[in-house]
């Protein structure tokens, strides 16, 4: 397949890794923000091919992982109500709330449906006028254009039985939080390629300058990732802190303007709670006032349960690059993808799940 196979060329990947080895002089800690990149790195064993001076730490860019426990509990409560069809991307169904997951609610009779796109949820609402259809709208900037369009489309169709349970998170405020933390270890970033496809990379210049870190927009195939690492290492060795684009076939500086326009029409900034990390100011998006009638949290007044996290889980330290999955005593014994204790084990893109799946135990 064009635009995939050439970026998995083992010969070229090795050549770029050799160039990284020729370039690197000092030890550096580099964070890939996006869980999709974490997954690729572990899948292709890229971290094992890099020179030992380089340490990759894995960022909080997995929306399934960082969706707050309160939000999962809210989803479970809404999905369990009669006359509700609860729709979601498939990877949210296994995420444990305080008491069970969406799969267990479905097993007790709730109508929970996996959809491929938010527009599929709108269609279900059109076909079921006597039911309330709720879509679990989680995601980073990448997913926001789809979720925003579902609201615009439902409004155009005049649907009053469609709403979104929203937990949107944004990358730049999370990078701020990581770099601003007193025990930060991250010295350079691979920025998330598909987030930048939507948003461009104009937001990253001030972060690079303020914290003196290089930031390189990076794709998802093995060749993309080693290219991103090479660009970061070149900058680190030179002492520069620029924003560069190593995913130019897909990302441009301004991003996708029509998508940004719809996002700003539908959403506004809000403080957001991240599972494993806590609240990061202005790191999320919520529906603007004029679209509040599509807010499921408003439509279904759910009594908040007090959420309880496992005391063993160290997901918060992992998501900030302070620890690796195998530093956790629960990793691969009490905590597995079948029975996850916390954020980073719940989705296949979470760092713990990727380490477990690809057998990284030391």
């Amino acid at each position: 397949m064009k635009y995939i196979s050439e970026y998995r060329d083992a010969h070229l990947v090795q050549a770029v890794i050799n160039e990284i080895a020729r370039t690197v002089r000092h030890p550096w800690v580099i964070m890939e923000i996006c869980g999709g990149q974490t997954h690729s790195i572990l899948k292709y064993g890229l971290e094992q091919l890099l020179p030992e001076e380089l340490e990759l730490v894995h960022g909080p860019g997995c929306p399934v992982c960082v969706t707050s426990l309160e939000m999962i509990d809210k989803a479970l409560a809404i999905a369990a109500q009669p006359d509700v069809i609860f729709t979601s991307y498939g990877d949210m169904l296994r995420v444990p709330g305080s008491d069970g997951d969406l799969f267990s609610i479905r097993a007790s009779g709730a109508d929970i449906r996996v959809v491929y796109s938010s527009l599929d949820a709108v269609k279900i609402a059109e076909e079921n006028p006597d039911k309330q259809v709720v879509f679990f709208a989680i995601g980073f900037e990448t997913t926001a254009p789809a979720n925003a369009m579902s609201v615009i489309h439902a409004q155009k169709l005049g649907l009053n039985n469609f709403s979104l349970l929203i937990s949107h998170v944004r990358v730049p405020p999370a990078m701020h939080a990581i770099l601003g933390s007193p025990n930060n270890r991250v010295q350079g970033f691979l920025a998330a390629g598909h987030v930048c496809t939507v948003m461009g990379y104009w937001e990253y210049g001030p972060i690079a300058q303020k914290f003196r870190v290089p930031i390189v927009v990076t794709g998802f195939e093995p060749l993309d990732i080693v290219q991103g690492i090479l660009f970061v290492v070149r900058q680190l060795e030179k002492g520069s802190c620029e924003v560069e684009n190593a995913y130019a076939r897909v990302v441009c500086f301004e991003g996708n303007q029509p998508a940004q326009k719809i996002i700003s029409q539908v959403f506004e900034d809000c403080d957001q709670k991240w599972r494993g990390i806590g609240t990061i100011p202005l790191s999320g998006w919520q529906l603007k006032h004029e679209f509040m009638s599509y807010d499921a949290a408003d439509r279904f007044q759910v009594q908040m349960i007090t959420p309880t996290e496992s005391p063993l889980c160290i997901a918060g330290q992992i998501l900030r690059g302070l620890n690796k999955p195998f530093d956790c005593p629960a990793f691969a014994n009490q905590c597995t993808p079948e029975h996850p204790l916390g954020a980073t084990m719940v989705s296949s893109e979470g760092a713990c799940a990727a380490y477990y799946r690809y057998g990284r135990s030391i």
Partner: protein
Amino acid sequence: MCLAVPGKILDIYEADGLLMGKIDFGGVIREACLTYVPEAKVGDFTIIHVGFALNLIDEKEAMETLALLDEISKQDFT
């Protein structure tokens, strides 16, 4: 979650007021919304996430990147 897959646009049409397209993902054909890439033409490659085209793939940039990396690979033998 932010997985987005390249595909080739086979057909462009309007449905329910939305710009839609048929996309070929290496033999698997699916429908996707093209509203965010109004400049798309049949035959273009695009990158699809949860049923939406996020951008068109820039062939010139793709060739330049591969040429740059190819240059790097030649240094292995010098």
